[in-house]
């Protein structure tokens, strides 16, 4: 039995009150986005729609579709590459520790917490230099590099749970570094790949600072386009809401279907094993 400080009805009352707080913006977003034009007045904000109308989605889709595609082109290679790099690093840092490996790991981890503003000016100069500024490949590179700390952390902690005897006995049988990685570690870490993949997918999809500073107009990922949509005075707020739903949909779907793994990533990213 857990701690019993308050009675059941009070527990449910508090939980429901918080749930209403958490769901309120979703309710608002949703009902606004499906309202017909004549019902989109600020004073009727909370009222349920009298008829269902998808005009605002059509308009938001027209405005956001190219950027939505940009985000897809960005997030898929960036997620795959950073997961692969992270798994290799995690393998080395958990099973092939050398002297100073822990310090290197700590130094790498620091990269996960820095305000990215503090590397932005040289980063942009550098990307201009190698002609990847204002391009999706440039953003992929940025997300792979700055994804190294978190993906390495997650894989290292995961591989630390793989018994060392397993590696040792494989070595007895003559398996080398890459054979062990390919035939033992990777098959064992499918779950880790799912967790890391979801984590990177969500973060890269939702990222804004790199996106807004490294790309302009046509190359911009979805979040920048959404921000532009909401910043412009001529766009109706029902279109903004529909746009917000469209932009949030991929990560929301991932959460709905794979939420368990998302939460595992969340916990794994904060507690060092």
């Amino acid at each position, binding site marked *: 039995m857990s*701690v019993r400080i308050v009675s059941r009805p009070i527990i449910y009352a508090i939980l429901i009150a918080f749930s209403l707080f958490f769901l309120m913006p979703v309710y608002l977003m949703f009902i606004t986005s499906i309202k017909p034009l004549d019902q989109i007045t600020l004073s009727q*904000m909370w009222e349920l729609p009298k008829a269902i109308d998808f005009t605002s989605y059509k308009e938001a889709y027209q405005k956001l579709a190219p950027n939505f595609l940009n985000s897809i082109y960005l997030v898929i290679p960036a997620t795959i590459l950073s997961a692969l790099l992270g798994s290799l690093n995690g393998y080395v840092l958990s099973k092939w520790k050398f002297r100073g490996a822990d310090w290197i790991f700590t130094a790498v981890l620091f*990269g996960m917490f820095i305000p990215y503003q503090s590397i932005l000016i040289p980063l942009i100069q550098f990307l201009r230099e190698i002609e990847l500024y204002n391009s999706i490949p440039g953003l992929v590179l940025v997300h792979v590099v700055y994804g190294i700390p978190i993906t390495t952390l997650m894989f290292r902690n*995961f591989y630390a749970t793989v018994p060392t005897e397993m590696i040792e006995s494989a070595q007895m049988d003559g398996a080398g570094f890459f054979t062990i990685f390919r035939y033992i570690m990777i098959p064992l870490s499918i779950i880790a790949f799912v967790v890391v993949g979801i984590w990177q997918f969500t973060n890269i999809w939702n990222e804004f600072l790199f996106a807004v*500073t490294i790309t302009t107009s046509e190359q911009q990922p979805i979040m920048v386009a959404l921000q532009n949509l*909401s910043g412009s005075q001529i766009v109706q707020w029902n279109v903004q809401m529909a746009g917000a739903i469209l932009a949030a949909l991929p990560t929301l779907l991932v959460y709905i279907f794979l*939420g368990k793994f998302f939460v595992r990533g969340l916990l794994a990213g904060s507690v060092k094993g």
Partner: protein
Amino acid sequence: MEPVKASTPLEHHSKPSMMKETKRKRPLINDRVKAILCLLPSIILITIFVYGFIGWTGYVSFSNWNSLIPDFSFAGLKNYAYLFADFRFQADLRNTVFFTLFFIMAVLVAGLILAILLDQKIRAESLFRNIFFFPMALSFVVTGVVWQWVLNPSTGVNLILKEFGISPMWYTSVTIIPGIEWGKIEFGVPVAMIAVVIAAMWQMTGFSVAMYLAGLRGIPDELREAARIDGASEFKIFTKIIFPLLMPITVSVIIIMAHISLKIFDLIYAMTGPGANFVTDVPGVYMFETTFRGNYYANGAAITMIMLLSVAIFIIPYLISSRKGGS
């Protein structure tokens, strides 16, 4: 993460003979070299992209590069002196302090309460959990866009609150409480920031709920039972046993939330912008506008150095202590 149980044929082999023992020495050295070589690209990338670029930004912050054309002549502390005397930056520091304090407190308190309630073997636990967690899957930009409407003083929640005779100004308020003059600014709690704290809390409370819930589930029931047998009240069990055991989690949540709030940019940029009199401005927004809209690169670099320093104060001790604790 839990270990994955899988049995490979390799596990069943018997103890190695002495011959094998000597034979595997050489390939092992070979493998060690391979391991380091595999790690090397990442080390180089991090060295350049994190440490090298930070150094470069630091260098820019001491330069005269405050126009489109790079100018790396040495300016000493000029840019820092300018910032600390600047109305906008002083306002940013004030806003960041109060935003960080209120945001962390809100996330900790709400997270702990909700986690304890969820841990009471209640019905529909996973439904509640999902309701509290899902905002974390969203972008701060989405959160900003939506809350901008929810807390818009002329519509949103005010339409409901009006029935009770209250209509807060939310993020448009320019009031600073108590508003003591200090430097160029009025010092105190910027009321407009509270609106931003509500939005940020909406997004991040799930994190502390998840952390505390994992912590609570990790405390063995026997501990509670033993205390109960000793006649401890439920309240005492919580304050004397459970809360101290959750302390490492509280520290982790504080560190993670502090580093998020000290570098916050997207939420505020999408929700309110700098605000009138810079009541909702933060260093992240100032840096973005002054560097990329105004071309004051050296000033922008100086802002980021101050941001980095404020984050490092929290993060470096945390990393070093968890390194020692971890391995």
